[in-house]
């Protein structure tokens, strides 16, 4: 039993930041799928997690989208919750005192429609206790640019990162959108702009049609696809980004078990997030911590760090892509 917990699972996700973001293990509950922590506190031992990320917080409170907000898809789901949340002021009033009761680091995910609003929220969070880091969701429409998604453009992603960086000294994770045409370029721009770590992937935009009603199933028409169905896309993007930057990468997308988790670590992720997997299997994150330690021990590794990126030939070289040209477009 003691042998199973021997390998060092700890990881610092903000090595360039004096605050550090040192986690006792690399298993993080993903934004949107873990509420604000308390929803799962009666189901799992939350303090065993490496960290958790709050639902997406916006400058003002949002009622969210009309129903239906969720549709199942093959080995996955689509969601269009519409960022229902109490707003940044409602958040800081209620949750930091609750988070203070736990030892697990709590990370706040923020979303906005302007660079200034991102910075405003970061400045408010900077003054709060019990917040370990900020995760910036750049998969939002930039109103000043006609609603074009921040995260699809390296420059716009960098602008958000720079503004948040100057508003806070907290560890700063930027969560990339898989809708970017060249995700490695976005990652490199975000690194240059001062991010401490990069997380990916957010959901992919999808749609399902109700054939009987002859209309899209979701009230919002489109929604984010998540779950095992998107895992290969996520692993590929983590591989590409872990090549292009030297920052720690946090991988996510369809992780349902140890083998999935290992794929992400081998591709270059220093930590992973579990999202949809928690919905269907609340015990999964804690189980993964134990299974990961056991696997490392069995395979003769003394730390998680030893396996990060070992399937990735260009890991942390800062090259645009270690993949050959034809491989990179999947042929």
């Amino acid at each position, binding site marked *: 039993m003691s042998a199973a917990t021997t390998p060092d699972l700890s990881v610092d996700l903000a090595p360039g930041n004096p605050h550090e973001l040192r986690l006792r293990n690399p298993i993080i509950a993903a934004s*949107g*799928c*873990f*509420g604000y922590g308390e*929803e*799962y506190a*009666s*189901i*799992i*031992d939350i303090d065993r997690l490496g960290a958790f990320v709050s*639902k997406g917080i916006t400058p003002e409170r949002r*009622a*969210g989208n*009309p*129903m*239906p*907000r*969720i549709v*199942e898809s*093959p*080995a*996955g*789901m689509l*969601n269009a*919750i519409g960022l*229902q949340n109490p707003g940044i002021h409602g958040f800081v009033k209620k949750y930091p005192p609750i988070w203070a009761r736990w030892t697990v680091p709590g990370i706040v995910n923020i979303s906005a429609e302007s660079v200034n609003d991102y910075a405003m929220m970061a400045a408010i969070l900077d003054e709060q206790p019990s917040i370990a880091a900020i995760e910036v969701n750049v998969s939002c429409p930039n109103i000043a640019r006609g609603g074009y998604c921040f995260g699809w453009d390296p420059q716009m992603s960098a602008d958000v990162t720079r503004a948040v960086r100057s508003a806070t000294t907290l560890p700063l994770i930027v969560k990339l959108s898989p809708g970017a045409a060249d995700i490695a370029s976005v990652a490199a721009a975000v690194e240059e702009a001062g991010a401490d770590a990069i997380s990916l992937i957010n959901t992919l935009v999808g749609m399902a049609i109700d054939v009987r009603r002859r209309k899209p199933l979701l009230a919002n028409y489109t929604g984010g696809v998540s*779950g*095992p169905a998107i895992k290969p896309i996520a692993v590929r993007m983590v591989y590409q980004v872990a090549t292009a930057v030297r920052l720690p990468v946090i991988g996510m997308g369809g992780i*349902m078990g140890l083998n999935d988790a290992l794929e992400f670590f081998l591709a270059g992720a220093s930590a992973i997030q579990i999202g*949809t997997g*928690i*919905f*269907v299997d*609340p*015990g999964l994150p804690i189980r993964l911590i134990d299974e990961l330690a056991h696997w490392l021990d069995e395979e003769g590794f003394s730390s998680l760090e030893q396996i990060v990126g070992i399937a990735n030939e260009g890991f942390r070289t800062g090259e645009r892509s270690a993949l050959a040209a034809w491989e990179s477009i999947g042929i």
Partner: protein
Amino acid sequence: MPILRVRAAGPTSKKDERLPPVTPSTETTGASREFESRVLSVEPIMGDAVLLTVSAPPAVLSHLQPGQFFNIVTRFSGSFDPLLRRPYSVYRAHRDDSALTFLVRPFGRGSSWLAERLPGERVGMLGPLGNSFEIPDRAQRLLMVGGGVGVAPLVMLSDEAALEKLDVVFVMGAANESGLLSASELPDRVEYVVATDDGTRGHRGLATEVVADFVQWADQIYACGPEPMYRTLRAVVEPQRINRRPSIQVSMERGMACGLGACLGCVVETTHGMIASCVKGPVFDLDEVIL
């Protein structure tokens, strides 16, 4: 069999009074809410539906209240399809035998998988979840209105009401006689009134048409069924109500992911905003639901 008190206990804050109180999740500790059940029996009922009886830990049963539900895995382990759990409210609690019964009608892939289970097989459970039907302190006469498989939580509520010697009229509607619940499924003291679309049994027409005769008799009305039924119910009951009494507690059916209030995929639009039906529901006061 221990009597389960389902009456509201203790004072609640003013804000909470407007919606049925949330069942305190701290009563059922940690891992006990996620567990694996063994299928004990599968019996046909109401045409193509089945009564699925599964094992459950005594701790789960001791806290269970009528109207609460379980989020059930409806696939084999190792498969990711269909991915999401399916919410089922409890049809009957067998406290002495540590077992639960669910009413399952094969409709989509998840329910079909569940209806095909055999005794001895394992099924993953998360629950009990959500709030519950409340019996107001002064209520003696309870009217229940069920449509199709929506009768499930009302059967458990009837069981508990019968133990408390309350008077129950149970109205059920179905397309035809074969879709009805057998009277033997309900406690003896419950008056069972049925309606069928084709008139093969009881009143010819909708269950809600029968309801009008009992509104003034009832201290409290409970309903579970499709949303169009709630619209009709509201229209039938409203002209006879005095000071918004009797009120109508309805169980809102929503597809959901987590069942714990984290995803906010199962919200119900109410006069107080978008409310997660998995934690502050599934039972709502119909006056507060925007249909």
